[in-house]
């Protein structure tokens, strides 16, 4: 299936958000996840399975004024 990660299409097998974050080697503590414009809290990452066409935003807080 194809999902959009930060605006870019990507082929991926079945997985939940936790598995995807893990596969990408991302640190969970600094990550903010938005799926189809809904924030998914870290405690729910295990439960939310990605589906074809999903738009996933992986965000984090950075320096800014």
């Amino acid at each position, binding site marked *: 299936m194809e999902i959009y*990660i*930060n*605006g870019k299409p990507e082929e991926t097998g079945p997985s939940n958000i936790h598995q995807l974050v893990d596969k*990408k080697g*991302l*640190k969970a*503590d*600094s*990550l*903010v996840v*938005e799926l189809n*414009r809904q*924030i998914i*809290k870290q405690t729910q990452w295990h439960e939310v399975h990605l589906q074809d066409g999903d738009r996933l*935003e*992986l*965000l*984090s*807080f*950075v*320096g*800014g*004024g």
Partner: protein
Amino acid sequence: MEDNVLNLGGVSFGSRLFTGTGKFSSNQLIPHMLAASGSQMITVALRRIDLSSPTENILAYIPDNVTLLPNTSGARSADEAVRVARIAREAGCGNFIKIEVITDMKYLMPDNLETLKATELLAKEGFIVLPYVLPDLPLAKRLEAAGAAAVMPLGAPIGTNRGLETKAMIALLIENCNVPIIVDAGIGRPSQAAEAMEMGADAVLVNTAIATATDPVAMGEAFALAVRAGRMAYLAEVAGESPLARASSPLTGFLN
């Protein structure tokens, strides 16, 4: 001289110097700068992570006793600003939000109309809204009516360090608004922060001038002193100017 404590949305701030986390050569300087400056409010931004080289978590460098002020930088419309604000709150950053909507990428001027729209929407959702705007009195009154907790006029374009180029317009806001006025952007030197406070600004927000100084920690302290001096001078009421000299010593000759 008695001073009242700055209050924004029910939260009290002992320091009238707000700071930012952008442009530090190392994020490790941030907690030291905060300790030296006594700043109790600091801005952060939200961005897509770079999957090829994820950056470090900026929040890890901000002590718990400092209030986070997420900004909506990167937003090009009110809708985008609202989206960023909701994400920041959901992510645990609290209710404060600095609305920054910029459509002009040359001068980075805030889009006042989109900012007003976002303020109206976010204040209704219970955010403590601090809109960053060009100083414009009728707009500031509308922001106030829309529920803004403060108005943050720019002194000069972001990152220019040119000081209070909009001084006369900021003075109108200070004179006529009921919400606190926080001068944000353009302040490059402690003397300019003191100038803003002397004229009655309630606080200043300084990022570039501290973060890009050779010694950001010492500069943070210098700004804190300037902000205190300026505030004290405002409360003490600055003496008037005169076109002619007015002798400080008796005008009579020494032996008369």
